[in-house]
C-alpha cells in the first residue's frame, strides 16, 4: 500500500475515524439514483412474475423443467465471479495497487462478457426445443424478465468498457476512483437481481 493511499483513504489504521458522517456513498450519488430505479423496475417485474405464478401455479411448476438448468447455472457462476473480480479491483485500487486492480477489472470484464454469450446460446437452445415467447405464460414472463435483465447486463458491460478505458489512461488513483466504484456498485446490483431470477425460472419446479 502506498503512503498516499494510507493518507488519502479512510482505512482502518487505528487513527480516529475519518469516515463521512452518515455513511459512505459507494461510487457517487448518480449511480445510486440509477440503481434505486433499477430495483424499482425489477420490483414491478417481480410483481408480474408472482401474480402470474399465483394465477398459473401448474405452468410455473412445470416451466423450469423445460429450461436449461446448465445455462442458468453458468450465467449465475459468470455473474458472481465477475462481481467478485470487480470487487477485488476496487479493493486493490484502494490499496494503491493500480496494476493488480486493472488485471482484476479485465478479469471481471471477461467473465461479464460470458453472460450475453451464454444467454445467446440458451435462447438458441430454447428455440431448438420449441420454447418461444408465446409458448405459455411461464415462458412469456421468463423472456420478459430475463431479456430485461440482459439489457441491464449490456449497460453494465458498456460501463465496464468505459471504466476500463479510464483505468488504462490512469484516471483512477487510490485517493480518487469514484467511477470504478460506481460501476462496481451497478454490477453488484445487477448480480443481486440475477441471483433472484435464477431460482424463480430454473429451480422452482
Amino acid at each position, binding site marked *: 500500500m502506498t503512503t498516499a493511499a494510507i493518507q488519502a483513504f479512510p482505512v482502518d489504521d487505528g487513527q480516529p475515524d475519518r469516515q463521512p458522517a452518515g455513511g459512505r456513498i459507494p461510487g457517487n450519488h448518480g449511480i445510486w439514483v440509477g440503481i434505486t430505479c433499477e*430495483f424499482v423496475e425489477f420490483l414491478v417485474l417481480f410483481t408480474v412474475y408472482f*401474480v402470474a405464478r*399465483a*394465477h398459473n401455479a401448474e405452468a410455473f411448476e412445470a416451466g423450469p423443467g423445460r429450461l436449461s438448468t446448465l445455462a442458468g447455472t453458468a450465467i449465475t457462476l459468470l455473474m458472481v465471479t465477475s462481481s467478485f473480480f470487480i470487487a477485488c479491483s476496487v479493493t486493490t485500487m484502494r*490499496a494503491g495497487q493500480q496494476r493488480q486492480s486493472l488485471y482484476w477489472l479485465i478479469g471481471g470484464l471477461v467473465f461479464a462478457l460470458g453472460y450475453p454469450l451464454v444467454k445467446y446460446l440458451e435462447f438458441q437452445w430454447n428455440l431448438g426445443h420449441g420454447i418461444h415467447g408465446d409458448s405459455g405464460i411461464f415462458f412469456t414472463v421468463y423472456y420478459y424478465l430475463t431479456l430485461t435483465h440482459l439489457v441491464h447486463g449490456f449497460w453494465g458491460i458498456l460501463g465496464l468498457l468505459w471504466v476500463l478505458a479510464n483505468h488504462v489512461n490512469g484516471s483512477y488513483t487510490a485517493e480518487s476512483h469514484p467511477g470504478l466504484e460506481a460501476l462496481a456498485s451497478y454490477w453488484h446490483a445487477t448480480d443481486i437481481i440475477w*441471483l433472484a431470477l435464477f431460482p424463480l425460472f430454473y429451480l422452482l419446479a
Partner: protein
Amino acid sequence: MKAKPALPSLSLSTLFGAWLGLLGLTALGLVLARWSAGASGLPLAVAAVVWFKGWLVARHFIESNLAHPFIAWVLRIFIVCVPAALLITTWFGPQLARWTSL
C-alpha cells in the same frame, strides 16, 4: 463512549470467502431443486438461499454496512422482497390470485 465505525476493507480474503459462499449456495440451490422437487419445504429453502446470496453480495461486495442509511435500506428492502413474495405466493397463492383478479 461512541463506537468507532468500521472502515472499508483492504483485504481480498473476505471477498474470496463471500465468493466461495455464493458458489456454495448456488450448488445448494441446485441440490435442493434436484432432490426436493415438489417438496412443500422447497420454496422456504429457496427463499432463504436467495436472501442469503443477496445479503452476501450487498454486505461484502457493496459494503452496505458502511454505506449511507438510504443505500443500506434500499438494499435490505430489495433483497427481502423476492423471498417474501415467494413465500406469500406459496402459502397464500389462491388468495393472491383472487385479490389480483380483474
